[in-house]
């Protein structure tokens, strides 16, 4: 079937198209050239004057896995308050901070998003993460494997195994867990917490292994680079949330000695310790570093005001922060010599000095980082806020007047301490398209997503222009997923199932024997029963495993 989207204003930064009027032709799920034979479209959508972008891609959103499910169980009120019945072929669901899988897919699609990536897949919980993602309709998915606190790797590093062995191990685990990237969370700190270490700086030694995070990050960044993953090591730095932690962030960048890295939810890692309250913004320092360091990408982790839950693999930090829980309850778990997880409900309040300053720090970062290709729009869902706040966040970035109105309403000491009010920058639609589509697809290596060129998957969002960007981005006029019209006027009109993006890694097979033995000896279980395969993932008829071949660099 041939479909035409006629007369839209196209925002396609991957091809430097900035609002030019044009048609988009779709056939067999792909964007195609205008038929040379003059063929008429079977379906014609007149979208004259409307804004057209590729479908949104969320590079960092906790959408599925054991940690998310624990958070759902914990967030009773979220699910009592927000629920929807099955109707018009849609499944029932509940929750906003921790939505059910079906709700997650529906809401992303209703905002014009067509892909989201789960950033904290634990080795032993990888199948669970995929099972949940398989039950998220409407969008493409993928996961980043959490390494760097797993005892196999720490043991390898402590015994000074050669980098090639580390590379093989990382490649094997990425392949076995069906992931597309690698994330490190509080390098060494989750393991150290199991040995009763309560804080860990970048150059402190961990308990038992006597490794410092510097070494762990460096080796893992090298491995990710060497095995050819497109997405650089996704780093959740040490000392999340600790006043003065911007120095740890800067030191982490220095530790990798020029290797490409991605610093995640950087808002939570851009804190100074100045002022009467010993909590201040260091956004300018971090932005300056990003602007001067081309090997560094960041995603934002913007916090917004309201109820949410923090869900993290960082048990050391979450245990420390449990007292801030609102409601006052928390879960921490040590997981299978692989990692951990911690859940603490949070209610960010605009009149609270720290919460308000976190909000300004995030926005300062957005506005002070010059290159929109190297910063990505996230709230670290649900840690900073639910992903459903993205339209509001986009308006804050695009509308200085609105931003300053909001600034005037927050804690006055935080407002006074922030430089936010003095920043004039307003993001353009073109830049928003970079932050939310073109940039994420490029940094993840999704060659056929995030753009509107010929051959791209027809994941497309069409928005009616509106002076209020929140209104515009909240309810797209039309959304297409792989060429099918799935959302009209913000309502789901068809349920579809997206693909799962997976890196196809090479590794020396001796590592497989080593890991098999390790699992049998120390976990008392069989590695073969953990390994995920394309056949297994696709057996339910919903999922589609899309492999991305890697070119090994070393």
């Amino acid at each position, binding site marked *: 079937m041939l479909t035409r989207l006629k007369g839209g204003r196209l925002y396609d930064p991957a091809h430097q198209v900035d609002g030019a009027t044009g048609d988009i032709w779709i056939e067999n799920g792909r964007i195609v050239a205008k038929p040379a034979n003059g063929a008429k479209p079977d379906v014609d959508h007149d979208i004259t004057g409307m804004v057209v972008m590729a479908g949104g891609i969320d590079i960092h959103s906790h959408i599925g896995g054991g940690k998310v499910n624990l958070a*759902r169980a914990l967030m009773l009120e979220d*699910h*009592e308050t927000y*629920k929807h*019945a099955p109707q018009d*072929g849609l499944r*029932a669901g509940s929750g906003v901070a921790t939505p059910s899988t079906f709700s997650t897919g529906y809401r992303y699609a209703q905002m014009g998003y067509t892909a989201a990536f789960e950033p904290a897949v634990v080795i032993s919980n990888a*199948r669970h993460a995929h099972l949940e993602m398989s039950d998220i309709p409407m969008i493409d998915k993928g996961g980043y494997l959490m390494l760097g606190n797993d005892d196999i790797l720490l043991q390898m590093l402590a015994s000074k195994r050669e980098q090639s062995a580390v590379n093989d191990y990382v490649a094997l685990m990425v392949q076995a867990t069906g992931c597309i990237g690698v994330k490190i969370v509080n390098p060494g700190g989750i393991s150290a917490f199991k040995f009763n270490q309560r804080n860990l700086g970048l150059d402190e030694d961990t308990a038992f292994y006597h490794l410092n995070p510097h070494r762990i990050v460096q080796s893992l960044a090298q491995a990710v680079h060497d095995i050819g993953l497109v997405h650089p090591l996704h780093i959740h730095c040490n000392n999340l949330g600790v006043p003065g932690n911007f120095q740890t962030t800067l030191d982490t960048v220095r530790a990798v000695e020029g290797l490409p890295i991605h610093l995640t939810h950087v808002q939570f890692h851009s804190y100074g310790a100045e002022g009467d309250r010993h909590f201040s913004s260091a956004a300018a320092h971090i932005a300056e570093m990003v602007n001067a360091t081309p090997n560094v990408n960041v995603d934002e982790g913007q916090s917004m005001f309201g109820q949410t839950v923090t869900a993290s693999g960082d048990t050391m930090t979450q245990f420390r922060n449990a007292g801030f829980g609102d409601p006052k*309850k928390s879960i921490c778990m*040590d997981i299978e010599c692989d990692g951990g997880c911690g859940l603490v409900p949070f209610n960010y309040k605009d009149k609270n000095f720290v919460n308000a300053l976190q909000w300004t720090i995030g926005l300062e970062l957005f506005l002070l980082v010059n290159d929109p290709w190297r910063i990505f729009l996230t709230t670290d869902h649900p840690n900073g806020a639910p992903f459903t706040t993205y339209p509001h966040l986009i308006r804050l970035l695009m509308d200085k007047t609105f931003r300053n109105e909001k600034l005037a309403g927050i804690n006055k000491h935080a407002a006074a301490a922030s430089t936010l009010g003095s920043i004039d920058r307003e993001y353009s639609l073109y830049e928003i398209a970079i932050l939310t589509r073109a940039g994420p697809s490029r940094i993840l290596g999704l060659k056929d997503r995030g753009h509107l060129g010929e051959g791209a998957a027809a994941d497309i969002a069409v928005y009616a222009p509106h002076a209020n960007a929140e209104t515009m981005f909240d309810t797209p006029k039309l959304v297409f997923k792989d060429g099918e019209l799935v959302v009209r006027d913000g309502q789901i009109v068809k349920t579809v199932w997206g693909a799962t993006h997976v890196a196809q890694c090479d590794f020396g097979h001796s590592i497989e024997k080593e890991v098999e033995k390790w699992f049998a000896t120390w976990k008392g279980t069989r590695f073969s029963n953990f390994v995920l395969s394309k056949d297994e993932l696709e057996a339910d008829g919903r999922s589609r495993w899309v492999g991305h071949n890697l070119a090994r660099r070393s």
Partner: protein
Amino acid sequence: MGVMSPDAKTDRVCPYCPLHCDDLIVSAQGEILSGGCEIACGHSSQIPLLQPTIAGQAVTRQQAEGEAARLLGQAHAPLISGLACDVDGLRAAVAVADQCRGFFDHGASDGFFNGLRVLQRRGALLTSPAEVRNRADVLVVFANQPWSRLPRFFDRYVPSGAQLFNDAPANRKIVLIGGSHAPDPLDGADVQVIPADLSKAAELALVLGALVAGRTPAVASSAGIAIDTLKEIAQALKAASYGVVAWENGDFGPHGDLAVEALYDLILTLNQTTRAAGLPLPPGGHVSGAHQVGLWQAGTPLRTCFTAEGPVYDSQLYSRAKLLADGRADLVLWISAMPGAVLPKIDDLPVILLSSTAPPDGPPPRVYIPVATPSLDHDSVFFRGEGVVSLHASRWRSPAPYLSVAETLAQISNQLPKGEQHPC
């Protein structure tokens, strides 16, 4: 036990208890050759000859499925329960509950909710099997006698070999509170068995928690344990590098959540100075899987009602026992493809039974449809009882002449009235 043959299959996952041991070796016919405990080896490898029935009369599978769909289509408040099946079966079961606006609860979830209610109200500080195996230097278990339902627990959680972080696990101290005797594999280990009345576990946990916190309650004993003995246990936990407090949720009686909450407080106190974590013993019948799947699909745990406004959860009101006692359900769909969720006696409601074994004695269910046993008859996924690890179980033997739970529910779902069908 049979003789190892060249076509033996290794690394098979056992469906019979929540440990889901995955090192079994089975023959091509599904006979366990190695790794099976007494529970696993107690199950016949023969494929049972079962016949679908309506009101006890033999029918074709299609007729039984059609009747099940008709009943579900007519029901106003069906209870979808049992739920002892693999993950795909559970996904299909939630979908049916959603379609039919039914209640959703596992057939053996009472003990599980003692722990879940505390987790939801206060939180939890938990550990998992591999951490216990390699890290625990003190393990205190509050349980009467769970070892008969978890035969390889000690082999899996605290084996006698070296630990990853401790070359001398013989120093590991194991205290079994409530148990009348230690299981065999523990002979030779440092095991202390302390009889106790676990119906008083809440008081016991409060007293032990006070001792851990440095207070001495003015009692001579608690739950039958002398205060001096409890002081020793408290001291051992405080001195441990990684103490693990384990418990059997179902042994604490109807107000067991009070005991679990007191144990949680005790664990929090320990973590002020050292590391410690909780370990609910794994519940049977794949409760952990049913909990996980229901939670991610609906956003709410077991004991959810799929109302006209969406999923509504109530851990008391929507338990299957309460629903049946209150007469709130008008039909029961009971799923029992693996052990752990026996169909209760239900006299006054039509029952659709999907089971891998014959219906229980007594009046026949309105509809009975035999189903395959997951793992044995088809590839499956199970959550191990701790709820963290899910394993892919390759089938043991040639496919049985029965559909899986997921396939059966799909057949029924497709015959539901149009308004109740889903595209997914």
